[in-house]
């Protein structure tokens, strides 16, 4: 399909270029019915075509330039922690003390990022565990059980949920969830649990709508064959549809995780922002995003503290690339499985 498009666009280009040059030789002789020389019109047409192609191509190139410069700038600043300030990457990734204003026993600043890395992964995984049954249930409902209600009520509801700003989720978490956790777990109520619950609600629409797409892409013949064998609806869903849609469902979950991993403000508002390795789900913790949000404005550019913050941003960036890579690997694997 893509190749066909390419060829046809190429042909059109060649054609109009030829017309341009042919009639270009006969400018004086032929005059169009409108009074305008036919050749000028043709020329303008092929010029317009070229201009259109260049302008839209320029827009696309600009987007690529933005992405490349974004990755370059963040990597440049994030890596200077290790190459300019001489901090050992092992100390950064495995150190459990985050206090960049002070130096440790080895005379280097205490820049252990492990508490934030653990915090980020904990909220991401926990929110995923919470969201999977809900997203899967909702997707099954919308595709298999009641498509009418699914498209009339559930989908608009999910769209609305996507539109609610993340700070509003953070605010609700702060006013409702944190006091609720405090009431039964004691302590402050801030922590991984509150953060994961807020994130679960936030990624629910993303995961659900992707899961709906995955279930819808299962061919109807699969279901019909299963029903023809006498299977109940649930047996069909469980043994046939879910298994056939597995790659798509995994993609949905991974993209949900990517969103949870990168969410900043809602998490920052409810997690307590204590850069220590969390001892339980209900004690204050921190994530990469929450520390970045809190500290970036306070530290001057070029200081070690600031560089280390950029390293945290780089970790976030690399993780989001990893999530994309996983999605691509899932896609490739399912394609090769289908081919077998």
């Amino acid at each position: 399909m893509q190749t066909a498009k390419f060829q046809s666009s190429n042909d059109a280009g060649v054609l109009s270029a030829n017309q341009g040059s042919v009639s270009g030789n006969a400018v004086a002789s032929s005059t169009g019915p409108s009074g305008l020389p036919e050749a000028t019109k043709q020329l303008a047409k092929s010029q317009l075509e070229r201009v259109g192609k260049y302008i839209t191509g320029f827009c696309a190139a600009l987007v690529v330039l933005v992405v490349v410069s974004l990755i370059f700038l963040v990597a440049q600043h994030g890596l200077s922690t290790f190459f300019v300030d001489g901090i050992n990457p092992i100390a950064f990734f495995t150190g459990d003390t985050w206090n960049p204003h002070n130096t440790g026993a080895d005379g280097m600043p205490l820049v252990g990022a492990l508490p934030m890395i653990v915090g980020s992964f904990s909220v991401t995984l926990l929110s995923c565990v919470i969201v999977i049954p809900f997203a899967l249930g909702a997707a099954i409902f919308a595709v298999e059980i009641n498509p009418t209600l699914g498209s009339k009520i559930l989908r608009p509801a999910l769209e609305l949920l996507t539109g609610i700003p993340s700070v509003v989720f953070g605010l609700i978490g702060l006013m409702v969830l944190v006091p609720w956790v405090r009431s039964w777990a004691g302590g402050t109520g801030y922590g991984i649990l509150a953060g994961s619950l807020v994130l679960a609600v936030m990624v629910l629409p993303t995961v659900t709508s992707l899961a709906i797409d995955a279930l819808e892409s299962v061919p109807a013949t699969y279901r019909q064959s299963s029903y023809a064998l006498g299977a109940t609806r649930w047996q069909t869903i469980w043994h046939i549809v879910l298994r056939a849609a597995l790659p798509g469902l995994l993609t949905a979950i991974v993209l949900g995780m990517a969103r949870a991993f990168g969410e900043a403000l809602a998490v920052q508002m409810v997690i307590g922002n204590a850069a220590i390795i969390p001892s339980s789900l209900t004690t204050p913790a921190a994530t990469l995003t929450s520390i970045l949000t809190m500290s970036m404005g306070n530290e001057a550019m070029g200081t070690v503290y600031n560089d280390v913050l950029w390293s945290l941003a780089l970790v976030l960036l690399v993780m989001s690339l990893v999530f994309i890579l996983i999605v691509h690997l899932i896609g490739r694997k399912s394609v090769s499985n289908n081919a077998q």
Partner: protein
Amino acid sequence: MPSNLSERAIKAKRQDKTATVIISVIVGFIILLLAAIIIYILAKGIGKAVDPSFLTSNPQQFKEGGGIGPELFNSFYLLVITLIISFPLSLGAAIFLAEYAPANAVTSGIKTAIEVLSSLPSIVVGLFAFLLFVIQMGWGFSIASGALALTVFNIPLLVRTIQQALESVPAHQRDAGLAMGLTRWETTIHIILPTAMPAIVTGLILSAGRVFGEAAALIYSAGQSAPALDFTNFDLSSASCPWNIWRPAETLAVHIWKINSEGVVPDLEAVSDGTAAVLIICVLAFNLLARFLGKRLGKKLTAE
């Protein structure tokens, strides 16, 4: 063994019923949750949200009774500037991808770049804008920096929706245009774009709703302060001129985050509830507008 078989059939039927009930309960819970979130925010904040003095007065840092006048204006102004920059750019990129792009490594590179951009955390986008526009360009915390940050944030979503809208135009319409002797560009402008317009408009408004509520990309680009605005001031270099794009501009979403993380405003809860209600009302309005316009345009197009 027929009895065993019928037992199994009964068991399968029971499982089927149980599963249906459980799934329906899950869906009911999700709908209730959404309703609860919206009702909670509206119920707590509606008193403030319909109070004209709250909507127009300046915020207070240490006193009670602060308003959100500048924040409300900033949110809309930033949104408009962001859309002015990001819509043409996304439209161009989407037309290129949908109509021109050859199937080669360059095109798949562009697609990958857009995919990367769409999965980047918005805080990283904000920090990039902070580095490039606020510091290296020396623009400081400003509407210009914020609008560009939001543009970067908005582009992947907008490109994808516009591209899908263009690609969903039936191939025979494209072929017909080309067969009439139109160039690819003319076909795109006169045939494809008008047909795809309802979906493009819907996508644009939905993305506007997302931009309107975004905060993480803005705290280090448009800044966290809202200078008092004077609508009679047209001196574009003055910090109190509303239209000056070089002044810092805190938005509604950033305001909620900032007052809650600082925690010094005495009537913190009332102000953040009111702001959240205003934010939700705007987002709901965007959502309804997108549906309405999408349907309206679609009808107009098919009726003609």
